């Protein structure tokens, strides 16, 4: 029993690494060191975008416009509560005592007093969320990002975060529901809820980017790095270098 998920995980990682290797050969000399698989990633992004424009985005819009705000908040809270339990484990794996305790308290308080997490009582009493997934845990343990990857359906990721995903899903409460119809509808609602939370951000992205792919990639890599370091990442060499000489002429 114990071996089956581990076996699946190894296969998955091996496949991802193989994919990275094979398509790595196809890249040109101008490749970005953080994104050696750019050609493949770009085509998968395009595929995801078409799917999003035609299925996910319209559904999420409908959900946002039709469902009462109170219900939407409740739904989001329930899923957040479930993820707080997994965050507790990941905070523990990263040896963050206080965050682990707070995440645990959050899930207990919200499950009991918030009626299975429908109401976010924990935030009201000052217990903050500390969302952590296994990719972040690997990052905190010092595992480097690896190449940037765009996954079909899931979108932006890195080799490390992709390797963390099967661990996240294997303990995912929703995915482990026995009743198949319930499980599938819960999964669908969770995806729609996530997407509806990103509608405004998506509109902004369309306006802000000169090249949407590059914008998304750079934003994702910065965002994840910030998460791994809990909001206080050390300065990155190439980011600090805004070469003062280049700035001086403009200052006056």
């Amino acid at each position, binding site marked *: 029993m114990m071996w089956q998920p581990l076996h699946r995980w190894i296969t998955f990682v091996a496949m991802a690494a193989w994919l990275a290797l094979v398509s790595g050969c196809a890249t040109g000399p101008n490749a970005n060191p953080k994104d050696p698989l750019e050609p493949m990633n770009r085509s998968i992004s395009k595929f995801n975008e078409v799917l999003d424009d035609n299925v996910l985005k319209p559904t999420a819009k409908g959900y946002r416009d039709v469902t009462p705000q109170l219900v939407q908040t409740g739904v989001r809270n329930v899923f957040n509560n479930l993820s707080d339990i997994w965050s507790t484990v990941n905070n523990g794996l990263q040896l963050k005592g206080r965050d682990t305790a707070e995440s645990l308290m959050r899930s207990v308080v919200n499950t009991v007093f918030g009626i299975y997490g429908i109401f976010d009582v924990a935030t009201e009493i000052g217990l903050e969320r500390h969302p952590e997934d296994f990719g972040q845990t690997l990052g905190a343990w010092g595992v480097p990002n690896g190449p940037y990857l765009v996954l079909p359906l899931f979108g932006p990721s890195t080799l490390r975060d992709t390797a963390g995903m099967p661990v996240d899903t294997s303990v995912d409460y929703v995915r482990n529901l026995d009743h198949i119809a319930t499980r599938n509808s819960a999964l669908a609602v969770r995806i729609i809820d996530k997407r509806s939370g990103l509608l405004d951000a998506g509109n902004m992205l369309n*306006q802000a980017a000169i090249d949407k792919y590059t914008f998304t990639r750079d934003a994702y890599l*910065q*965002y994840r790095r910030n998460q791994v370091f809990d909001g206080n990442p050390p300065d990155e060499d190439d980011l600090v270098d805004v070469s003062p000489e*280049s700035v001086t002429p*403009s200052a006056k």
Partner: protein
Amino acid sequence: MNRFLSRRSFSALACVAVVALGMSGPARAADEAADVFIKRVSSDILDAIKADKSIKNGEINKIIALVDQRVMPNVNFSRMTASAAGPAWRQATPEQQKRLQDEFKILLVRTYSGALGQVSDQSIALRPLRAAADDKEVLVRTELRGKGDPIQLDYRVEKAADGSWKVYNMNVMGIWLVENYKTQFAQEINAKGIDGLITSLSERNKSNARASQ
């Protein structure tokens, strides 16, 4: 009675004058800590948005006016544009630099105007500052608190020659604005030169303007 009244109104006037002088003089800005500066400016902007309905309705001209009056005086925008453009900035003519700055500013104002329209009951909370008193460049970390999870908002500020603070980079949830445009700018400059980048920006601005009509 008359004399008393006039004396009182005179002293009230004097009070107003003193306060006004204190507000506008660089003397006040000089001894203001970097995080206090950020807190003051951002609360000021949040209040201005909350007070004006037309901004919440997304009236772009009102938002641009707000940005020009309250945001831009506190930003070193040429430094922001220069860092995003990288080494190519030095080779650009002053006229190109100006056009690049103008187009970049329109792009940012337009994209952030949507976010400004969402402001309702949020407030700014400062996170601990790690800086010495005489630091010329400081990282100010804040949180936007409202309903839902707090949103991380950080600023890099520099001390200008006149002693006032100027923002030269900011991040939302860990995503630094300048860094996020660096690669895109470099792509355009490598492919089509600095004029090509300016053209791409102005085309993006035009299509954004059409989309919002």
